[in-house]
């Protein structure tokens, strides 16, 4: 697949740098630079022994035996020696994984030093006005309905609903979902303050789209759902509108804080960058 061809290890530049690094390392191993006076020390402190023991305990649920302790320490000393030798040979340089890990550690350090702030009311209001487009309350509707099942009535479904509509309209304006010859419906008989997304889960998208915009106060139909035809009486409708700050205060505050921390982190990194002179293009 195309995406696999973009993997980093297929880049010629990576191959070039990688092969260079291997040659350089091989040269250092075969021709080690002269060691000055002292032999470097690997110190095995009591703290280290305790920490290794605790890690073992966490992992296995029991303390180290004497033989295991010797083996664990031996393994640690060997890896410490290899680690030091790798650093001495400069193998940490030009290594993408080491670089990424150290950058990550710096970011963790910086993030830990950030101080979460709260905006004052004016600051939050100004921010909310700037981001008003992100805070919209969806249209909501409340309705009752009568259901005419397509699987029970087949081609006569719409006609049955239309006939019942005349009766309902003639009977006056009060919605009474229990009246008339409705069929059993799996979903709710009445819905209150629901959004288009909520309606479509139970009636299908087409029904939801036509009901969400209906004006309240009269029976209408037949409106087709995934299951048949419905007569619908909308009792209340709220159009989509921008939210006020009070309606979305918790959400806005959380978003403000997250954005503020991002800005603080960016400033910190900018500060570090200014300690360097960046040259070239």
């Amino acid at each position, binding site marked *: 697949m195309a995406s696999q061809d973009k993997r980093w290890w297929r880049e010629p530049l990576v191959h070039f740098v990688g092969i260079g690094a291997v040659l350089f390392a091989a040269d250092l191993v075969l021709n080690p630079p002269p060691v000055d006076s002292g032999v470097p020390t690997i110190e095995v402190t009591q703290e280290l022994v305790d920490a290794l023991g605790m890690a073992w305990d966490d992992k296995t649920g029991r303390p180290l035996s004497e033989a295991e302790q010797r083996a664990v320490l031996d393994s640690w000393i060997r890896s410490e020696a290899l680690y030091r030798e790798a650093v001495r040979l400069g193998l940490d340089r030009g290594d993408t994984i080491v670089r990424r890990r150290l950058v990550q550690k710096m970011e963790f350090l910086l993030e830990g030093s950030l101080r979460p702030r709260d905006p004052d009311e004016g600051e939050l209001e100004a921010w909310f006005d700037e981001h008003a487009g992100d805070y919209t309350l969806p249209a909501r509707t409340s309705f009752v309905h009568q259901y005419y099942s397509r699987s029970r009535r087949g081609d006569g479904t719409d006609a049955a609903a239309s006939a019942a509509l005349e009766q309902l309209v003639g009977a006056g304006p009060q919605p009474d979902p229990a009246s008339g010859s*409705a*069929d059993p419906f799996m979903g709710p008989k009445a819905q209150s303050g629901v959004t288009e997304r909520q309606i*479509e889960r139970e009636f299908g998208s087409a029904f939801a789209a036509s009901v969400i915009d209906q004006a309240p106060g009269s029976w209408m139909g037949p409106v087709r759902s995934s*299951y048949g035809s419905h007569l619908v009486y909308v009792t209340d409708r709220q159009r989509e509108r921008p939210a006020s700050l009070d309606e979305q205060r918790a959400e806005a505050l959380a978003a403000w804080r997250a954005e503020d921390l991002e800005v603080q982190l960016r400033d910190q990194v900018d500060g570090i960058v200014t300690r360097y002179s960046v040259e070239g293009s």
Partner: protein
Amino acid sequence: VWEVSQEITEAANDPCTFTAFHGYEWTRSEGDASAGVHRNIIFRGSEVVDSPVSTFEAWDQYDMLAETRDACEAVSDCQFLAIPHNPNFSYGLMFQVEDAEDGTVLTAEGAQLRADFEPLIEVFQVKGGSECRNGFQYFSAEYDEFCDFEIIQPTTLCHLPEADPDNCLLECDPERPNTARNETEDAEAIPGCAASTDFVRNALKEGLVQQERLGLNPFKYGFVGGTDNHNGTPSGVEEEIFRGSHGELDNDAVEQVDREGGVLANVENPGGLSAVWAEENTRASLFDAMMRKETYATSGTRIVHRFFGGWDYPADLCDDPDLVQKGYDGGVSMGGTLPGTGDAPTFVAWASRAADLTDADGTSWPGTPLQRIQIIKVWTDDAGEAHEQVYDITPDPDNGASVDTETCELTSAGSDELCAVWTDPDFDAGERASYYTRVLEDPTCRWTQHICNESAGEWSCDDPDSPEYWEGCCLPDAPKTVQERAWASPIWYDPS
């Protein structure tokens, strides 16, 4: 991590719109012999354990339940439930009662823990179906044509003896009756054994048997389904767009359609869903509904389903617009228990297909018509033997519906709705029993077939230049269609 998880959950929880529960998974896994008794731990409210009981604290599933109970009791208002998950992948351990070496595994205390904190079982997810499997029946059972559904492990299927295919490589371990080890020559195939104690129908049977022994039913499970797709897309269950779930193991078309080579690819599926009948979409209401098992699982479809059991339901209840109210008034909903009265209970099962949806791009996602509703009864007799029986309860179960696998168009249609009132014709007032439903859709294209069809114009099965993955599309035993379904939690009949 637990604190961060709690912060994120609190921020996401929006009562009546989107409910987010505090929770985590207890995932013991080390080699094949110990995997697969995982639990999803879910808390009722904001009051949670100080720190999760992980496999480091408790390696054994019963120790984990006991320690979580103790940790939760130490926090006021803390309540939790545990959902055993992926039982089909448990190598026989999920519903194990006895061990060939150590004797009894399930103690009275363990049974109590399961009864108290495990109301639900996952019957379906990305890594396969757990309802039942032919060849792995428990006690007596007949061949059930709908049992071998999205079976994942082992990849070679064994049916009852007369249906055994020639390539069956399944061997039974005499030390562990009703288990089978996957000895396929394919080194990458899933290791370990499949066992009768991996499947939920068998657990329902064993639960009734254990109730005689222990005085309570340790496996009195309602049903849920899950995705567990590792993609961060919970409930992304559409066959049309599923493209694997385990990263490098199944992220290209070769792995997805090649049934021979796939470990966790072709034999997977897009996963299932859980539905909960609750008063409102809030933590407390949903949690309480899960505790009373008023749930149903699906294989990924959004079928709507009701199931009630009682004594005085009229034969024409399906025509009554107040069916639901009368269902509750005259008996119990899915997950409930009927006490013994001497009379055979009557059940009403009602289902409608998933609604037709259109997404923001204008792509339509039509619901699939329904084919049949079945009731599956499991029971124990006087001798302590467990039995099972499948009943078709809606008319015209073989409706002739089929799907054109080249276009994935349905060539004839089942029903928008199905409903039936049914009384057990073989009822014995003295026998413990449980009844659950299986609602089947008409067949549709399986996800792998959608992938094959994308290239169908370019290649044919006898073209030597066709790409490697295309071979998987030409295997004669590769499933091209799937019958999506829903399972309602059982209703138990308890003569005591």
